[in-house]
């Protein structure tokens, strides 16, 4: 797979699955993985890691990508109650019925994107929040 193909595949995946179309002024590029960055970094000849990782090698979007671009999603999103949002932020899996199809889901609360989860088709949304990002939330929005 040549350089350029992976970014295209990831772009196609997020468009098809979530309906996310990246706005102008944001680019995907390949440097040891697909990364999301500002356009000036495309032609920068200083050796380094531009922007941040957009997905893993299976094209699963990273938590950072989802939290920063998930607001652009048109489908496969779910709104949480306050109680469930707190449980999600604490890293817990959630009991929820989204049908029988397994799929990645963007988790929202009051319109804010918390992150994503993997719905297993058996009424459980598996939490994909990185362990270091999990925390007990003490306030309200």
């Amino acid at each position: 797979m040549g350089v350029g193909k992976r970014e295209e595949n990831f772009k196609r995946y997020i468009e098809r699955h979530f309906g996310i179309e990246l706005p102008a002024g944001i680019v995907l590029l390949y440097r040891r993985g697909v990364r999301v960055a500002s356009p000036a970094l495309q032609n920068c000849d200083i050796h380094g890691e531009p922007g941040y990782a957009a997905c893993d090698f299976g094209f699963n979007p990273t938590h950072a990508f989802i939290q920063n671009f998930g607001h652009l999603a048109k489908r496969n999103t779910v709104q949480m109650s306050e109680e469930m949002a707190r449980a999600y932020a604490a890293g817990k899996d959630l009991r929820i019925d989204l049908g029988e199809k397994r799929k990645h889901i963007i988790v929202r609360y009051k319109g804010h994107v918390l992150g994503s989860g993997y719905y297993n088709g058996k009424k459980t949304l598996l939490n994909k929040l990185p362990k270091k990002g999990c925390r007990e939330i003490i306030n309200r929005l």
Partner: protein
Amino acid sequence: MERGEYSDWLNSYTDAEKCEAAFARRQTFFRVNTIKIPLEKFRQISKIPYAEVDEYPAAFRLTEVQYPIGKTWEYFLGYLHPQSLSSMLVSLALDPKPDEYVLDACAAPGSKFSHMAMLMGNQGVLAGNDQKGRLSALYATINRLNILNALVTVRDSKKLDWKGRFDKVLLDAPCSSLGSEEYAVERWNVAESRRMGAIQTKMLFAAYDALKPGGHLIYSTCTYAKEENEQVVQTLLENVPTAKLTDVGWNVPHDSGLSEYGNEFRRCCRIYPQHLQSEGFFIAKITKEE
């Protein structure tokens, strides 16, 4: 160093009693990350107990002592970043622009780095350099705050190889941290500052070398010792004729740099805790003449 001895030493710089009392009572500040949320929207949604710091856009002060800001939705969502007010002034002093090449030579954990990204509107090239072992904190900041113009590099900050590549450079050098860490004084003595000063000098020469002619460099530390501040800058000025101290360019309560190193050092800023109810900082702005 013993506390009493430290106070005597500190009195040679500022009113030690005022300084230590203000440090003990220093306020907690945070910066709203306008990359992810406009200020107006933050004001609408946030119920954190805060007061805005009028003079500094996006700077907020917690009005409730010990409020656990890291456990808020706003932190979780990347809408804010805890950062001392004096630390914010460092990036404001450099004033990075969206179309520029900017280097943060010691970027981790990324508070000033992410502030610069915000000031650049997430555009241009913002290189963040540090040692490999310190990068995880920098990556976490980049991810959480959506820093898209970041270019993370791993170089020895004493041996950078980017001659004349950057419009602006920030060197917030590792230091004895007397202005920011509560217990730093217990493991510190003047000899330690001399040792740090030698390392900081090498870093400053390397950072200056990375600067384009006509470019600006900010050298900062969060300590008071002249061996890590004026003396480091003086070594550069004495050895590099194109390096000139310039005014930092804002009107913030501060003391001038120590004039025993020359009148031009009055252009440097010494921010003590009593000035802003925040951490102590030294800030020098250096221009590379064309």
